[in-house]
């Protein structure tokens, strides 16, 4: 299949998509052919047939084959869309996928086969969890917690309003209309209303991801779509139970409210428990790095399933698990595991999303339909109307409590972004066979189509038209991080002066609790003590280091500003000869020569020259490589400059390569198991902060010799810069790790 794609590359893109489509359909229909009889007749022993060279036994692999085929073809479709540039810019991918599903479903039906429908087990147990986990694990916590009140109000009150308003008005319309609809009773309408009222996270994600609106709006709509699951679950079960019975009493109403709290809080609790378990487990995985990602996935999936067992909100459980687990897991796992987790989650959620939309299309064609103009049209109109009224009304109330109010533009986007999707369809599918079921299903499908197609397609130009603020593209800088933390403390302090315990006070308390108790249990080693600013700094360093490696060093050296430019100058106190031992000098000279000689020397050659032993992961090598390259470039640029710079500086030497206590101990304890590259991170400051560490004696004993050798080599290479650059008054023990193991 993949090969055919390449071969078709030379054809006009549209043609290739059509061909793919046809192939897709052919294969899909083939998978429904009657099983071939490929086995031999076991009783046929009298006649000796020729030994069968080639057999056809499809039954054997039927199920996995079909599944793989569907997934593969779905992904090829996704590939195909991006080949046609113009279409993919106008039409969101979800629409295209639904169209493909429709076409496929149509073909299959035309051939006379039975198309597979989006059945609820498949959807709820296999397709939905990856998407939700991906969303929950990477949920931006700060905007979410800052707006959690607003989100909850929209999710709970908004959904309730939608459900009852729609159910009520539908009932009224049905009564008025009479005829076929007269038999629809109030409870059925309310049930229908509750299914169709919930904003769908899959659809929201699919559409909003492509329009890049600002964080606040994104988190509002998306958060709402996640948290309304509890409401939907309760309402759905409530009305389903009672539409069978026929009446609802006050007691039932009260029980429903209680049920809501149980469902939502229970879901959160289950998720948190699994999250804590997962975090705790990750503390001990330092020797088995390879299976780390699996723990994350499995614990989360178990959280979802466990919540589903008790009819609690599985989505909330999954979100709670991901959110709880994430900070601790990230502190514990290796960098590779982190990347793996990220990419697997993205991959699975992407596949799921694609499959969901395609199946939605196929099911539309496959399913039985009962079209009733009034019902369907009223449903669609009501969805929009109730959403708009709900948002406006709620915003009016919410704005009284918000510091940063929601503007009309914001309200519009929130209202317009309330898309319905596959969850509504699946819930409809789950309905017990009801005389109105097909009618409901048709209406639901129409609403879903309407929101995804019409609203999905038009939201992008509307966002442009209304000039809604877009997402800030740049990554957070260290200054912003410093000031975010500073602001947190400042605002907490001002609240303290004012004497009232607001938002910041409680957040501060939670952070402190987290730091003193929770982190100690859930994070391995010394990282549990690391303040957030430092973790951020490390991560930033790491990122820049990787950026340099990938870009091939000299091209992207960040800025031409170096430490020299920001150091306050002092009068030179005359130049003195650096007191270096002979052996050291030799080593330095050798390194300098080696560095300057070749331009394309690979790092491996250095290791052969025994400058450092490198038993560690690739990342470390890359970083060292990067560092060497960087140094080489720096040196080539400023070699002469080094040798003439006045030696003496002030007492506190300029930049030190940061080696935190936590780092060192971490480093040595993990050497055998493969050091996280993170440990090397702090070494590569943005500029040529090629400095030497002024150690405090307690750090010395932790160093093991092989690690030390490596360090000294790096230090050696870098120390050359330092020696040339720095003054002589400095204690010479800096950086002379192994060769001068003595104290300062």
């Amino acid at each position, binding site marked *: 299949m993949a090969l055919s794609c390449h071969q078709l590359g030379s054809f006009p893109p549209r043609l290739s998509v059509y061909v793919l489509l046809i192939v897709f359909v052919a294969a899909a229909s083939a998978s429904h052919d009657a099983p071939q009889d490929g086995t031999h007749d076991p009783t046929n022993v009298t006649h000796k047939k020729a030994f069968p060279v080639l057999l056809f036994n499809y039954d054997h692999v039927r199920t996995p084959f079909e599944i793989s085929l569907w997934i593969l073809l779905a992904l090829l479709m996704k590939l195909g869309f991006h080949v046609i540039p113009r279409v993919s810019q106008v039409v969101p991918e979800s629409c295209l996928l639904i169209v493909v599903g429709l076409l496929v479903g149509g073909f299959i039906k035309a051939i006379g086969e039975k198309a597979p429908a989006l059945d609820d087990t498949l959807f709820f147990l296999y397709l939905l969890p990856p998407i939700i986990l991906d969303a929950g694990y990477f949920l931006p916590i700060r905007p979410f917690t800052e707006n959690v009140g607003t989100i909850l109000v929209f999710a709970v009150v908004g959904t309730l309003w939608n459900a009852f308003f729609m159910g009520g008005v539908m009932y009224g319309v049905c009564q008025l209309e009479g005829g076929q609809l007269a038999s629809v009773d109030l409870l059925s309408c309310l049930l229908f209303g509750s299914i169709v009222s919930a904003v769908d996270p899959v659809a929201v994600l699919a559409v909003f991801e492509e329009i890049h609106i600002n964080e606040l709006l994104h988190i509002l709509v998306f958060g709402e779509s996640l948290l309304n699951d509890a409401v939907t679950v309760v309402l759905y079960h409530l009305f389903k139970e009672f539409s069978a019975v026929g009446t609802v009493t006050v007691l039932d109403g009260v029980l429903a409210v209680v049920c809501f709290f149980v469902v939502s809080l229970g879901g959160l609790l289950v998720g948190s428990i699994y999250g804590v378990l997962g975090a705790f487990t990750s503390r001990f995985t330092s020797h088995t790095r390879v299976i780390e990602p699996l723990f994350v996935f499995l614990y989360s999936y178990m959280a979802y399933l466990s919540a589903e067992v008790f009819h609690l909100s599985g989505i909330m459980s999954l979100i709670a698990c991901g959110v709880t687990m994430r900070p601790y897991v990230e502190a514990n796992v290796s960098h590779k595991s982190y990347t793996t987790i990220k990419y697997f989650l993205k991959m699975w959620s992407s596949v799921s999303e694609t499959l969901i939309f395609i199946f939605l299309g196929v099911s539309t064609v496959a399913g039985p339909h009962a079209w009733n103009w009034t019902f369907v049209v009223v449903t669609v109109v009501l969805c929009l109307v109730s959403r708009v009224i709900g948002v406006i009304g709620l915003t009016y109330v919410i704005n009284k409590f918000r*510091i940063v109010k929601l503007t009309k533009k914001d309200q519009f986007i929130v209202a317009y972004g309330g898309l319905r999707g596959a969850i509504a369809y699946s819930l409809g599918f789950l309905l017990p066979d009801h005389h109105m079921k097909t009618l409901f299903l048709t209406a639901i499908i129409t609403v879903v189509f309407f929101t995804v197609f019409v609203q999905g397609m038009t939201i992008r130009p509307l966002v442009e038209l209304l000039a809604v603020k877009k997402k800030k593209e740049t990554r957070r800088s260290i200054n912003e991080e410093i000031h975010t933390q500073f602001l947190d403390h400042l605002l907490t302090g001002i609240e303290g*002066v004012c004497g*009232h315990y607001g938002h*910041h006070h409680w957040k501060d308390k939670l952070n402190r609790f987290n730091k003193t108790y929770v982190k100690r249990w859930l994070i391995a080693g010394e990282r549990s003590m690391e303040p957030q600013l430092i973790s951020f700094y490390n991560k930033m360093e790491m990122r820049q280091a990787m950026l340099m490696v990938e870009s091939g060093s000299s091209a992207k050296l960040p800025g031409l500003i170096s430490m020299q430019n920001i150091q306050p100058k002092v009068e030179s106190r005359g130049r003195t000869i650096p007191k270096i031992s002979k052996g050291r000098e030799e080593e330095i000279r050798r390194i300098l020569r080696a560095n300057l000689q070749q331009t394309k020397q690979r790092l491996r050659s250095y290791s052969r020259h025994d400058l450092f032993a490198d038993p560690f992961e690739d990342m470390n090598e890359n970083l060292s490589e990067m560092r060497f390259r960087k140094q080489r470039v720096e040196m080539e640029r400023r070699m002469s400059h080094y040798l003439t710079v006045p030696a003496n500086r002030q007492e506190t030497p300029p930049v030190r390569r940061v080696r935190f206590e936590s780092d060192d101990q971490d480093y040595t304890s993990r050497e055998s198991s493969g050091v996280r590259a993170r440990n090397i991170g702090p070494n590569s400051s943005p500029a040529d902060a090629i400095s030497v560490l002024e150690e405090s004696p307690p750090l010395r004993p932790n160093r093991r010799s092989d690690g030390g050798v490596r360090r000294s080599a790096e230090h050696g290479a870098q120390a050359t810069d330092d020696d040339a650059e720095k003054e002589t008054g400095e204690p010479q023990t800096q950086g002379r790790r192994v060769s001068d193991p003595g104290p300062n």
Partner: protein
Amino acid sequence: MGASQTRTEDVFQELSEKTGFSLEQIRILHKRFRQLSGDEETISKENLEKIQALDKNPIRNQIIEAFFDKRNQNDGEVGSSREIGFQQFVKVMCHFKPPTLKMTTEEKEAIRREKLRFLFNMHDTDDDGTITLDEYRKVVEELLSKSGAIGQEAAKAIADAAMLEVASINVPHMEPHEFYEGITFEHFEQILKGLEMESRMNIRFLDVDTSTMHCGKSQ
């Protein structure tokens, strides 16, 4: 008695108009002010240092200092007062009001600049209009001070990296011999552009009766 009360009300009214707080909020702040000052007319640093809620705060001293910093009064003076009255207290609190819905973009910009100015003054302890490397280092050190024994090294490195970033963004091409004096207010504005101070640097001044908020903890 009656006369002085109406005078107080007038003062409140005037303050309310000047600063944009509602009358109710001014009354609450006044109650708090009396509480902090022990029923005096002015508060000094010692009064603020007694607040228990500030104990665990790493930048406690800077916050207290900010109240007494004359630059935050927008009078054009510099230096630090020893005591402040209610008006000055409210003036400082003014920096933490959110912009209203009805403000234009320019007004929001002005508010943002005011808040950034407040932050800048907190960092620029020697009143010279720039944040030097040492001052910035001190800021980071204070931030990390309550976070455990990480030590000066980390703070220095982070501050240096941050300073470099500011310099790189604002003055992209510098010769090796040129020296970047310090972060000026314009540069400061530039680097914190993305944070949208006008939406973040706010606290809630609720119209709530302070007598319910004591809980025995605050002073």
